[in-house]
């Protein structure tokens, strides 16, 4: 059995075993799940070498029949595109388990079990090479998130959880229909096989078919991303979720949407992707600016970070639909960056909440004087998030802007406005929270980072710096996989676009 299969089994088995642990021993549950998640992380590190050696090809492939009719196969594998997303998920899981250590005091066993189950679901999505398998994991990852928000969230948690579930469910209903339609045309759910059939002309979609199939997939993914104006579930879900839920949601679950677009929409429906690129870019830029403007006026820190996600993911979508190598590389890199820096922001906001029991910015002020280390970490993360050079987001944003400019300079101009706005709202929040006068409620309640919290935040900060300076450790693998997808998309570019590409 190859390493990838073991990596999938570990969290699933961990989930089942956690359910069997005694209910009245939360310490055991915490240690056990932390142990399982660390094992998963270490295993995932073993994936890096072989994939980097050959990022364009699929590594760790395993392909065996699951259901005979219709032919559904357990087909999983990794390339440079999914590798880092897999590692991002396994990297964050032990961190969110540590984050929840003190905060989660009720129904501890179920909580950690759901976290492991969530890891199982998202890993499955990132490594599935069979459309049906992809869908199964896609839906399965929904269930633990629903419980995480609904049971351990804040006041309006139930509303948020149900909204989240129904939005995604409605999108995936369309996706399933599209999958079946595609199956009926081609006789397979296998993604590489479908790509191959299209390349060889054995599967030809008419313009209308291509358009509707593309739309069905795209809407399902866009809801998850979430692309403006389908984003309304996100602030609720993020705002109400417990810290670990917000982190997993922002850092990993949203990536399922963007990953789906790159993995499925682009290579399977290249013509439709080209035809629809214009308005999608419009929505992406709209989302960048809208998200930033709304974030600016949020009195609630979590909602502010949530809206900033809408803005940041606009960048990812923009990068993808430029259909340029730099743009797509930047988009994928930005997926990882957002996972690290927004995850860290949610964690830091969660730490503030644990101390002061409020998410309102107005309840804070002068935290810097009572908790200098916490504030320093927060400031570094903020700077990473707004794209300061030498930190991770800068690289991604730069590449996306470059790609956008290659396609149409105006796109880059509008998107850059978003970069400026994000600096405004993030720094403004930092100023109001950490500087100025210190109210008594803050003065008396605040302690600086504990050892556990250091353990949580340091790896994230380290990643921000590493990804900002050493992007060459990560980008080659991404580029290699991207260029493969891009070659499919470019080959189906409308004539004008082809000339443009040739001219370059």
């Amino acid at each position, binding site marked *: 059995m190859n390493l990838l299969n073991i990596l999938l089994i570990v969290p699933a088995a961990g989930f089942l075993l956690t359910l069997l642990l005694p209910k009245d021993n939360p310490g055991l549950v915490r240690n056990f799940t932390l142990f399982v998640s660390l094992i998963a992380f270490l295993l995932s590190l073993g994936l890096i070498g072989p994939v980097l050696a050959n990022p364009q090809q699929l590594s760790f492939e395993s392909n065996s029949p699951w259901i005979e009719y219709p032919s559904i196969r357990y087909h999983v594998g990794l390339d440079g595109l999914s590798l880092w997303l897999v590692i991002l998920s396994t990297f964050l899981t032990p961190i969110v388990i540590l984050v929840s250590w003190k905060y989660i005091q009720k129904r501890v066993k179920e909580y950690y079990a759901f976290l492991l189950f969530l890891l199982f679901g998202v890993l499955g999505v990132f490594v599935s090479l069979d459309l049906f398998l992809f869908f199964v994991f896609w839906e399965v990852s929904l269930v633990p998130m629903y419980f995480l928000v609904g049971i351990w969230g804040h006041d309006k948690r139930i509303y948020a959880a149900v909204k989240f*579930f*129904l939005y995604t469910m409605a999108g995936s209903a369309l996706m399933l229909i599209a999958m079946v339609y595609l199956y009926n045309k081609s006789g397979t759910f296998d993604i590489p096989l479908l790509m191959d059939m299209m390349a060889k002309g054995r599967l030809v979609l008419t313009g209308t078919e291509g358009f509707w199939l593309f739309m069905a997939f795209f809407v399902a993914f866009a809801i998850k991303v979430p692309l403006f104006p389908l984003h309304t579930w996100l602030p609720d879900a993020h705002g109400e979720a417990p810290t670990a839920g917000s982190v997993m949601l922002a850092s990993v679950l949203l990536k399922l949407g963007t990953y789906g677009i790159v993995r499925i929409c682009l290579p399977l429906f290249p013509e439709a992707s080209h035809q629809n690129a214009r308005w999608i870019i419009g929505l992406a830029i709209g989302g960048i600016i809208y998200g930033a403007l709304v974030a600016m006026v949020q009195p609630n820190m979590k909602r502010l970070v949530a809206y900033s996600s809408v803005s940041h993911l606009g960048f990812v979508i923009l990068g993808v639909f430029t259909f340029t190598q730099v743009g797509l590389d930047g988009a994928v890199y930005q997926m990882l960056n957002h996972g690290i820096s927004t995850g860290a922001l949610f964690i830091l906001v969660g730490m503030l909440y644990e101390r002061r029991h409020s998410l309102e910015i107005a309840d804070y002020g002068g935290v810097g004087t009572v908790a200098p280390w916490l504030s320093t970490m927060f400031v570094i993360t903020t700077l990473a998030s707004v794209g300061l050079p030498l930190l991770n987001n800068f690289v991604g944003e730069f590449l996306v802007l470059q790609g956008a400019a290659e396609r149409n300079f105006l796109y880059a101009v509008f998107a850059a406005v978003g970069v400026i706005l994000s600096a405004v709202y993030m720094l403004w929040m930092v100023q109001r929270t950490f500087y100025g006068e210190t109210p008594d409620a803050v003065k008396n309640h605040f302690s600086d980072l504990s050892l556990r919290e250091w353990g949580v935040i340091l790896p994230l900060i380290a990643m921000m710096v590493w990804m900002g300076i050493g992007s060459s450790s990560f980008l080659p693998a991404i580029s290699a996989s991207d260029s493969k997808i891009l070659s499919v998309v470019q080959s189906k570019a409308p004539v004008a676009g082809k000339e443009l590409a040739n001219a370059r």
Partner: protein
Amino acid sequence: MPASFVPPSPQELFRFAPEMLMTVVATLIMVMEPLSAPEGKRKFAVMTFLALIAGIVLTVMGTNDPGTAFSKMLVLDGFAAFFRILVMVVGLLIVLISTNYLKLEQHESGEYYAVMLFSIIGQCLMVSANELIMLFIGLECSSIASYVLAGYLRDDKRNNESALKYFLLGSFATAFLLYGVAWIYGLTGTTNLSAIRTTLLDPTNHPNLVMLGAATALLFVGLAFKVSAAPFQMWAPDVYQGAPAPVTAFMSVGPKAAAFAMFLRILMTAFEPLKDRWEPILWVSALATMIIGNFAALRQTNIKRLLAYSSIAHAGYVMVALTTHSEIGTAAAMFYLASYAFMNIGAFAVVTYVARRGEKHVATQDLSGLSQTQPLVAAMLTIFLLSLTGIPLTAGFFGKFYIFKAALDANLIWLAVLGMLNSAVAAYYYLRIIVVMYMQPPAESAEELLAPSAGIRVAILCTAIVTLFLGIFPSFVLDFAGRSASLIR
């Protein structure tokens, strides 16, 4: 039909040994009932249980030698065997959840089991009827027994109302059906399904299409009523709500599956030549059934009523499979009915357990905090609800998947899209129950919930295991359904 009496051969008798065995046991129970002491009623449940198991074994043995019996009035093919086993398994599960319920209500008696057996016998006849009169006999046998069961607790007003409604409306429906049968006989000169098909296919002998349409419509009324398809679904919520919980579980699964089997057989054999004409009617009915069921369920606060409306919606999904009039569609419907049987009985088993004596606790709010007081039961109910919603790795997901795949195969794209969106609506009300169980604290005033009885525990565990099993390895049942979907024409 031959006028002279031909004695049935031993093979023919063996094909219908399960029905005969059950008839004997049911009659025996009726005879023994007045002679047994009040404490000795438990033995009737055991007898019924054993009779059903023997019936299943005999059916499996009978499938080695498929064919017709009793002057071609009945037929045992893979299709009939599939549904026969299904209704008998349903019977087994219902016996498991009934025993404790009847004890609590102090209404333990043999009649209950005898009547249930008669109902199951009727359903077995329905699914193997090769002929309209036989079909009517099976239907009446099953229905009359169901009317009795719906009003089983005769001192309970709600039970009385339920039984009366069911009886009156059900009789109307069967009357329509019988009238349709008479017309068909008048038009084609036969009540045998294959003979009707032959007559309809014969170009020299084409009956008047208008009359034939009217006759089919009459049949449709009767059948649609039995499966609670729109616009004949109105009775279901009231009847389901009023009947004793185990009986509701039974009615929403057993008679319905049998009626769908009958529906499928008639459409796929006798009236297959007219498929272009009935397809639009089914299309509209399927869509209306899904929409009415789902949207009405959104507003329910009584779990039994909610499940009743959801059961209407699920009938709508099966109607989609019927509309495709293909073997894949038939197999999809069979798979769906089987998975629905397990998840729905599982859900009702939990409802029966939570409702307690006198069914006082049937509001959705009564489930609040169940995840803390009875975590295992809550987890099982969550599995059933996720399966009813259609989340992957549960039986319900594959059920829906195969149905909508069959619809797409048959080029019914819009029906499939609307059906899928409908199931997203359904997610809302199923989720609400999960919300109540997991996200709301138990009410402080609530009386303590005792651990479930052994019967309920076994029923819930078995159904949950099957629900998950079919969600991970659907081929197990689907292959069987696929092989049995071809009907003897």
